[in-house]
């Protein structure tokens, strides 16, 4: 049976879940805690809270949201955005998060990943990559897809694994928010290189996109935002696309 995890991604700015296209042009969706609780009750496997402006202000502002969410939500929670130090990670986990997703600071100081994995375990450290296609290759971006790094995204993913990350979250900035399908070539290259789980993010607009991602790559989890925020399809429709057997709305 297919066990690909279905993840809801909540990009948060100033206390609101927002949604943009290519990580830009943001539109307000609603209250993060209410939305997270709804997805939990609908049967989502996991939730990622991403502070979209944290990197710009050098701090994460989601700890209190996580704290509240964890009182009622009993599934894995990942927090990302503006995580810069071991003490940030400690604070995130103490707020109730199970994992932290690190992008910008990992590029600046890769040793943070190794140090954090040693202290908190690899399972708590998600290497987050925002990739844009350039001349047939992908480049890693930081600061919510704003700043280029000159680093090859596929090689960087492998390096993050070697540094001690337990999982990779790969967001295609080109596909993000477009609802026009995943960047399948990107996900394919990364999953072929790695021996840790990979979460694909960016581009899901209909069940067919999910089917074709799963048919063509070795992906382990899919993070989606627009699809759920705009009620394009339900969690159970996503599971059907993934090949789960569903009877009367329940997995069997």
């Amino acid at each position, binding site marked *: 049976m297919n066990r690909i995890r279905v993840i809801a991604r909540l990009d948060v700015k100033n206390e609101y879940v927002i949604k943009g296209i290519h990580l830009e042009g943001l539109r307000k969706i609603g209250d993060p805690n209410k939305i997270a609780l709804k997805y939990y009750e609908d049967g989502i496997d996991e939730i990622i809270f991403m502070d979209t402006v944290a990197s710009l202000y050098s701090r994460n502002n989601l700890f209190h949201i996580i704290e509240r969410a964890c009182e*009622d939500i009993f599934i894995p929670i990942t927090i990302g955005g503006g995580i810069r130090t071991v003490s940030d990670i400690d604070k995130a986990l103490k707020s109730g998060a199970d994992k932290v997703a690190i992008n910008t600071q990992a590029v600046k100081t890769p040793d943070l990943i190794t140090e954090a994995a040693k202290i908190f375990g690899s399972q708590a450290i998600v290497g987050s990559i925002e990739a844009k296609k350039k001349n047939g290759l992908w480049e890693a971006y930081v600061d919510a897809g704003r700043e280029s790094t000159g680093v090859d995204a596929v090689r960087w993913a492998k390096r993050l694994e070697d540094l001690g990350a337990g999982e990779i979250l790969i967001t295609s900035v080109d596909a993000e928010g477009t609802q026009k399908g995943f960047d399948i070539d990107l996900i394919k290259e990364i999953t072929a290189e790695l*021996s840790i789980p990979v979460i694909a993010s960016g581009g899901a607009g209909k069940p067919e996109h999910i089917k074709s991602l799963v048919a063509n790559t070795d992906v382990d989890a899919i993070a989606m935002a627009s699809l759920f925020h705009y009620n394009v399809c339900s969690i159970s429709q996503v599971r059907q696309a993934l090949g789960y057997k569903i009877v009367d709305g329940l997995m069997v």
Partner: protein
Amino acid sequence: MTNKRIAIIDYGAGNIKSIANALKKVGAESVLTRNREDVLSSDSMILPGVGAFASAMERLHNYDLVNVIKEFVCVRQKPVLGICLGLQLLFEESEEFGLTKGLGIIKGRVIKMPTGTVKKLPHIQWNEVQISESKKSSSVLLGGIADNGRVYFIHSFVVMPQVKEDVLSTSVYNGYKFCSAVESGNIYGTQFHPEKSAATGLHIFRNFINASKNKQAKT
């Protein structure tokens, strides 16, 4: 029946808040502690854990918790639930970073899943548990859980109980079958995270709470 208190052993391991929140959700009283008297006067104990075996054992030693846990479980015979690394710590030894001695409460050892077989580690999945045939009608911890019920796993190491009867359930990851829960008298453990397994996980906590109530009623 009066509410029973559960001690969550605090040795600085990962996300303990979720366990306390889950217990609160199902109406149980818990205390996060590393104090000997607090632990021993509790009715049951949860040994949490994520991360590395060796550093967890080192911390249990540093906080003088090894003998407290052994007295609670082996001498006073009160219910204990080990979760993930907490389950692994109950065993005799782990091969993580060379051999490290564990608490030795359950016979057997902890090994890394063979990467050649499973391909990707950690095993991060909602996966099914198959309850052992001999435990299907008698299990306290997984009583009322549907065979093939889905729970959340995140780990690279697994336990290998020496006594076959200790195996409460097995699960399969990429063709590799491993022990996903143990139950032996007052000793319970799950390789998965009940505090992250939605309604199924909360049901397991309720079962564990009932185990401590029944235990108390008998003695």
